[in-house]
């Protein structure tokens, strides 16, 4: 599972200051005399901003699902209470653990990229552990779906089951995107081309998936 990294990854300074362009902001207006020495370069990184924009979009999607659940529950007396598969609680521990391992990994890789750690330290190890925990979570969710299906509770059995499947599958699909991101980070790290901003953005996404799951579990537990 582990990969040996022989050379420390190159530290690619993100867009600034190496590229020199970037937003002025109101503090950095270029003076009319054109003396650029008076201008300080500053700009947030696109990956850093982009991930928050993406998370805002995902938040809206799940807010819409939540609104639909609340409205639909109040629309008709056919709402049936369901018992959540116990494996979901185990899965919750797994995804929380994956956030912890990713955070450890992020700090180690950051230190490694900064040249602070011994070269023998394998910075990818905790990333692999996170990846494994992520896959374990998806496997656990799949187990929960199969368990419900074996008990005769399908997507159309009752609308509460419909929401259960829709919310958990939608979350799992988003989480698969996070797994892809982690795999990409590992690939880039092994080729020594990983950018710090890529790692940070992937971490934020993954942590968000964890927070989102805890919210969904609470919602499902409370409403279903």
């Amino acid at each position, binding site marked *: 599972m582990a990969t040996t990294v022989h050379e420390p990854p190159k530290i690619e300074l993100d867009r600034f200051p190496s590229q*020199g362009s*970037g937003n002025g902001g*109101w503090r950095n207006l270029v003076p*009319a005399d054109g003396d650029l020495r008076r201008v300080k370069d500053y700009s*947030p990184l696109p990956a850093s901003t*982009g991930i928050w*924009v993406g998370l805002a979009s995902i938040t809206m999607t799940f807010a*819409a699902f939540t609104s639909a659940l609340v409205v639909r529950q109040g629309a008709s007396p056919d709402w049936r209470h369901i018992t959540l598969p116990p494996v979901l609680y185990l899965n919750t521990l797994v995804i929380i653990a994956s956030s912890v391992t990713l955070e450890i990994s992020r700090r180690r890789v950051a230190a490694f990229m900064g040249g602070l750690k011994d070269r023998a330290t394998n910075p990818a190890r905790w990333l692999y552990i996170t990846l494994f925990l992520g896959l374990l979570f998806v496997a656990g969710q799949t187990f929960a779906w199969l368990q419900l299906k074996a008990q005769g509770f399908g997507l159309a059995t009752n609308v509460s089951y419909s929401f259960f499947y829709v919310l958990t599958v939608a979350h799992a699909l988003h989480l698969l995107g996070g797994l892809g991101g982690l795999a990409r980070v590992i690939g880039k790290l092994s080729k020594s081309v990983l950018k710090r901003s890529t790692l940070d953005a992937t971490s934020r996404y993954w942590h968000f998936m964890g927070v989102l799951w805890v919210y969904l579990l609470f919602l499902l537990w409370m409403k279903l």
Partner: protein
Amino acid sequence: MHDMSAHAVQHGAPTSFIRKHVFSLDHKVIGKQYYALALLAALVGMVLSWIMRIHLGWGSFAIPGLHLLSSTGAPGNVLTPEYYLQLMTMHGTIMVFFVLTTAPFAAFGNFFLPIQTGAEDMPFPHFNMMSFWVTFVAFVVLVASFFAGDGPTLGGWTQYAPLSAIGSVGGPGEGIGVVLWASSIGLFCIGQLLGALNFITTTLDMRCRGMSLMRLPLSAWAWFITSIMGLTAFAVLMPACILLILDHIAGTSFFVASNLVINDQVLPHSGGSTLLWQHLFWFFGHPEVYIAIVPGMGIISHILITNMRKPMLSHRVLIYSMGALAALSYMVYGHHMFVSGMNPVSSLAFSFPTLVITIPSTIIVLIWLGSLYGAKLRINSASLFSLGFVSMFISGGVSGFFLAQPSIDIMLHATYFVVGHFHLVMGVAAMFGIFAGTYFWFPKMAGRMMNETLGRVHFWMSFVGAYCIFMPFHYLGIAGNVRRYQAFTDDYLIPLIPVHKFITIAALFTGVAQLIFVYNLIHSRFKGEIAPNDNPWEGTSLEWSTATPPPHNNFGDKMPVVYHDPYQYSVEGASTDYVMQTSPEKINSPKEEK
């Protein structure tokens, strides 16, 4: 200019045909692809409207070749009532999503936002490429519904449940047609979300040196604000489409109520909420109106300023007003549901912000008119269409005052009055914004000029034609003419048929004008007069300071540095009547933004 020669561009210039013209990562190529898709969609949507209008004016008239589209939907080349509704649904869907959203926002925004901000490209070019191709697939899926099963859905572009969710038992177009519609719109949402991600990040992070937010041109501001709306609105429509598809293919009961009997069959669904769809749809739907119109506001402001040779009365207030429109657009969606049986208090709660939203709209209009007052406007096709935009926006907006009040809306709901209102304010106005942008930016996009005479003919025919079509709609609505009827057999509707005939003739006349535009566009692309220089309109923003057409990384090896506000026209003491943003020339302008 700032030396950028040592800095790597985000992705190298493409060498293969596929990467250069098909799966391009270049925002300029993607912008052109979006424009081409919107043009194709507009032609399809226009032909559909012709067919509908001919049917409304002369119901028994056989349109040659129509049976080729659907032998069951148009036997003897005459539309069946169901097929009329199917074509109407496709007209609305294609126009709202694939024309009004795609052209002013995705097409022009893709091409010009990075250039106007001084960026080399969008920050996530692969997402940008995916954005277009997902949108293209969405269009293909939608058009495929013409040829699948019993044809496209007939539920209208709003696809109200339960009609949209009951399946093929409901009649033609209610089975696979709805599934394809919802799949198409779901894909479209993904495409727009990817686009919005790039637009927002470009504006916030990719601006060149000296380009503060307030130094962005109004068009860039409009695209930025629209992308924020798109990010939140399409993220809500997509889950709604997923739930609709599940009601169809998985037998779930999100939108279909219990014990619903359709065509003597009791449906197996139970307990669904028909209003749930309306809530989800209109939470997207009203911001969508502004997604269609705000880019046009920015584009025509940009064009008018260039042709007035002076800035707007207030750059900031115009930006704040567009932002206010965006924020308020989320608080008014319930005004589409006044007749849904909602609590009167809720009606009031939605009516009040609907009236409030007229305040920023009015401020914007007053800024336009106040700025135009006394201006020596350069008359050309672009400025004429910009003026046309203002005219249409006012004319269509005024009827919005009436519809904002529940007591009046209940009477006018689902009549031609509403159809006239939204066609003028978000349909024709947005189209005029697209035309204005095309005539204005064509030299930069293609390196050639469009034919000015044909452009003016196009404008006057469109301007007169559009009013002849949509003003009588208001009259029809007040007279009680319900929309979506394919024939007028009731006593009180029969006297209105001559009005419909007049509208049909006006629609065909206006359509001919659009064919002139298409001819002008294609002819000018290949044989038009070569653009005299990189800045034929003597503009000040960054798109006019780079080569024509712009190089792969937009500015060559010299990245721009911005010294001034976007609209420095008629500056006292300057060597010319305009000072470009990149000009280091000192100017004495007390109004420079800080």
